[in-house]
């Protein structure tokens, strides 16, 4: 009886009809020329009102009833649609190549209802257009993927110029940033001013803010899934660029034509090289640089098996060297990520696609100090970091046109080193060699099904079971996920979602802006894992002329066991100032809860000569910690009532592209001194004074607002196709109207009156860059 029930349930669930024979059309969709896989391509059969989309690797599978011939329409934003007519008398394997459109022409589709983002069950997901990353003006002309994400509703930047992301009230630690399946722990260069993702090597970026599919886990607020390009399989190409502060070079091409290709991309800043001659006369030298290197190779054994090996290496280094007489001193601060991913795609059959990934990820911060004088030598080395080794197995199963099932398992071994310090002294024997290390195992198993219940109603249901093992203690938590969409008419849909998330690692950040000194630490007995629940409700509407997508989403999120530094604590406080006792990071933090809610509005135009979007977010964020602000709830620094982004890209002609952005945000919530007084204490036996020093009265935590932030950037690109390559000159202006936005405030103490001073980081900054593509 149970077997029968199970069989019936499966038959019902999969909608298998024994009386009608089915055929399966499967294959891959790739970009014409380069053979790069295209993910998210819509495949639609107008005669059957049935369709599917390609997965991350460009694979699709569509099972339809046998019958008369039908048309398959392959469409993708920015590419020319392709239509294939085929007989429904047997299975088909089709590899489709789509050619890029010039200037993202508005596609005229013969089908009556092309499936759109509106129809997708998943909500709170935004595909970041890669062309926008390359076009939108940027600080010093450095193109930055994370800064483009900041322009999306629901996503906020922290401070002026910073790449840190605050998504729906969550901190930068709550974003899962994945590069080819590998977690990137510190996604920033230059103390957070630039992200480490080089736009030349990126194939796709997806941001998910809520309604998380079950395949994702481990963070509370967002998932940023970045896929690197694979490299052109047909011919050798390259891109190079010279900017104000860095230069970059990308090369790609076939290793074995049609079967294997490579891509290598690098970038390095050269401020240190330019400054070096200016410092050559001094007794000291100081400098800073960063570089990153991305590489990928792949090989197609056949249509069923492919392997990929991708790697990212990035480093920032700040150094200071001093030399005079018998003294030699050198201080270094360097940090960076290394990720490596090996992936194997295997097609079990026409309906089942699998990917296996072996992943290595490492982030480390090193502070070194070495000085020698005469025969004495002193060396100090501080290390902090995290190292991951993971394995991941994912299966996509498309039994019929009503179901798209994804299931998988993943496990990651983390090794945390929050603090490791070595001190050596040649004379005096002052030697320290201390290490704080934690080892944990984080795993997850999931299943999700994108179900088309009717032609108008879709449900994406999933369950993830997460598991965390630290020493002898383990935690197992179920994480239900549910998203649904219902079409009203042909162009409007209503969506709703619910997601529970758990986060087993914490980031100890004293600033929240992505400084390299931020420490990753695991959940422990004392510091519990963070967890959240989020509901969202939204409406999407596609306008036909002009082709615009309008979406409005509301969300409510509660997070528990979120952590913050205790009042008075900081990452520098590793030793008690008086007793000299070691202070564990667990002593410096406190746990509490957070609540965030808001509305997001996005009007987007993806096609045509003029593209861009307008985003508006109205939001509230509250934090409540028993040990902070006397237990009263307060707004965190990044609580921003209004956040507006306007982005426009206009292709004036084939040779000229004009783009601009304007952003506005309510000022950050901060604590400012309201007054000064003498604070008293209980006099003890040795202390006779009732008062002990001056105290600052802040009122309640973060009860004051910085001035509102607003800024406009513009850029113009001049393209020209020369004999062997295409060159682009870009002139851009950051902060066009020279708005003096506050970076921070401080009190200047005066004899007659104290003053509040504002420090601004970036005035109007013009930049120019040159790039070429061949």
């Amino acid at each position: 009886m149970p077997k029968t029930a199970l069989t019936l349930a499966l038959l019902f669930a999969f909608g298998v009809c024994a009386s009608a024979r089915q055929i399966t059309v499967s294959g891959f969709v790739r970009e014409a020329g380069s053979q790069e896989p295209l993910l998210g391509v819509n495949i639609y059969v107008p005669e059957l009102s049935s369709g599917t989309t390609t997965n991350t690797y460009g694979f699709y599978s569509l099972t339809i009833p046998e019958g008369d011939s039908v048309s398959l329409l392959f469409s993708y934003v920015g590419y020319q649609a392709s239509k294939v007519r085929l007989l429904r008398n047997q299975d088909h394997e089709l590899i489709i190549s789509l050619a890029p459109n010039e200037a993202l022409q508005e596609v005229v589709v013969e089908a009556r209802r092309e499936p759109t983002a509106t129809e997708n069950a998943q909500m709170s997901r935004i595909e970041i257009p890669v062309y926008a990353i390359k076009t939108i003006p940027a600080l010093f002309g450095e193109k930055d993927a994370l800064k483009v994400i900041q322009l999306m509703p629901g996503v906020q930047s922290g401070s002026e110029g910073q790449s840190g992301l605050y998504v729906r009230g969550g901190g930068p630690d709550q974003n899962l940033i994945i590069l080819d399946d590998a977690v990137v722990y510190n996604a920033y260069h230059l103390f957070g001013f630039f992200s480490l993702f080089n736009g030349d090597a990126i194939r796709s970026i997806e941001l998910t803010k809520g309604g998380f599919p079950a395949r994702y886990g481990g963070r509370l607020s967002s998932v940023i899934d970045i896929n690197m390009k694979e490299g052109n399989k047909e011919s050798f190409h390259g891109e190079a660029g010279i900017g104000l502060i860095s230069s970059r070079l990308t090369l790609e091409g076939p290793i074995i034509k049609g079967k294997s290709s490579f891509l290598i991309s690098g970038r390095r800043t050269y401020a240190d090289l330019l400054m070096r001659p200016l410092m050559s006369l001094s007794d000291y030298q100081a400098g800073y640089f960063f570089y990153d290197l991305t590489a990928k190779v792949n090989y197609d054994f056949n249509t069923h098996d492919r392997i990929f090996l991708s790697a990212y290496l990035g480093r920032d280094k700040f150094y200071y060297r001093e030399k005079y007489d018998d003294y030699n001193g050198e201080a270094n601060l360097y940090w960076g990520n290394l990720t490596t991913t090996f992936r194997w795609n295997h097609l079990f059959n026409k309906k089942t696609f699998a990917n296996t990934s072996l992943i290595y990820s490492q982030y480390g911060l090193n502070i070194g100090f070495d000085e020698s004088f005469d025969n004495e030598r002193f060396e100090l080395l501080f290390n902090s970091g995290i190292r991951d080794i993971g394995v991941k197995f994912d299966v996509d199963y498309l039994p019929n046109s009503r179901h798209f099932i994804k299931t998988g398992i993943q496990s990651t071994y983390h090794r945390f080193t929050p603090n490791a310090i070595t001190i050596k002294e040649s004379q005096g024997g002052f030697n320290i060699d201390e290490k704080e290390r934690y080892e944990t195992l984080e795993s997850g198993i999931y299943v999700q099904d994108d179900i088309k219940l009717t032609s108008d109603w879709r449900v994406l249901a999933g369950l993830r079971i997460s598991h965390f093992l630290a020493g002898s203690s383990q935690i197992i938590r179920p994480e239900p996920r549910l998203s649904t969409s219902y079409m009203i008419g042909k162009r409007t849909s209503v969506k709703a979602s619910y997601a529970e998330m758990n986060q087993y690692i914490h980031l100890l950040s004293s600033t929240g802006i992505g400084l390299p000194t931020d420490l990753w630490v695991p959940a422990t007995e004392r510091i519990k894992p963070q967890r959240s629940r989020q509901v969202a409700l939204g409406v999407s509407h596609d306008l036909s002329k002009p082709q615009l997508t309008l979406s409005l989403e509301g969300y409510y999120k509660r997070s528990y066991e979120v952590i913050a530094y205790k009042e008075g604590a900081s990452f520098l406080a590793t030793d008690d100032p008086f007793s000299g006792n070691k202070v564990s990071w667990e002593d410096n933090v406190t746990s509490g809860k957070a609540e965030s809610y808001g509305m997001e509005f996005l009007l987007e135009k993806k096609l045509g000569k003029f593209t861009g979007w307008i985003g508006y977010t109205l939001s509230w964020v509250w934090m409540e910690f028993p040990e902070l602000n006397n237990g009263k709830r307060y707004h965190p620094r990044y609580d921003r009532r209004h956040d507006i982004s306007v982005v426009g890209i206009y292709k004036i002609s084939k040779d000229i592209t004009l783009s601009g952005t304007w952003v506005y945000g309510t000022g950050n919530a901060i604590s400012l001194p309201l007054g000064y007084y003498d604070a008293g204490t209980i006099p003890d036996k040795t202390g006779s004074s009732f008062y002990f020093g001056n105290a600052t009265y802040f009122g309640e935590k973060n009860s004051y607002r910085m001035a509102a932030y607003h800024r406009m950037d513009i850029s113009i690109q001049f393209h020209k196709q020369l004999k062997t390559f295409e060159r682009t000159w870009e002139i851009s202006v950051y902060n066009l109207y020279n708005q003096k936005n506050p970076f921070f405030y401080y009190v200047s103490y005066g004899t007659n009156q104290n003053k509040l001073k504002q420090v601004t980081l970036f005035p109007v900054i013009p930049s120019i860059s040159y790039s070429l593509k061949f």
Partner: protein
Amino acid sequence: MKKRALFFLVTAFFLASCEKDANIPLPQTDPQLTVYCFLEVGKPIELKLGNMVPAFANPRRDPEKISGALIIIRYGTSEFQLTEVSGDPGMYTHPHQVEAGGHYTLYVEVSGYPSLHADCTAPTYSPDRFSMQYKSSPQQSFGGGFSDSLRRISFSWPDEANARNYYRISARFGYQFSSFPTTEETIYFSERNYDDNNANGEEIQSVIGNSYISTPSSFDHLYAELELMMLDEHAYRYMRTYDVAYFSEDNPFAEPVIRYSNISGGIGVFGALIRKFYSAPIY
């Protein structure tokens, strides 16, 4: 020289925009009274009254001691008006000896300020015993007949069952050499405040305190003294934030500290404590 000039020009370009007066309304607040009163069981009442001055007052002002205030403390049906101590502005006293378990209310009135209200209840419990764990590092002699050593000690004491209790410790080593008077050295603790959360009725254990003591190479005896204060909740919460603010004031990266206050209409604390000293010889 040209290179240096160029270097400074480049630097100046990037820093040119840096600083100016903030063009936002300055935070405004009215002056407020500050009150510090820790009622100690068995001791007369003492209260210190001052004020908080606005950070951006024009002209700039410094905090002052406040004289001429009407300060009344009520206990049961009794009412005590505090008098200002001559020659100690802002210090007010009353000879009433604070009683364990007594509930006291405070009222302060000063012309030009809002009136203040607060209340607290004096604790009743004080442990009848304590224990300590002592450890000393090897002595390092540095000449002149003196030596230096790190002495570490922790204390524990029993908590009262089925009651919410709060503690604060202070401790010192004492030693005597020949006929010289007793010398005392403070013991430093990373945490001086404890509550009985998750330790109801159990032994409360302090963190390990340290003291570097320079002593004559030989002395007659060494002892440890624990000063244990049983606090009410207001005094405990205030002292916790007070300590955190004190320890972090020189750290520019530290989070701002919001000091606890239970004074309605003002700033400060109206709390209570029992103080008890425990002493034991080490050798």
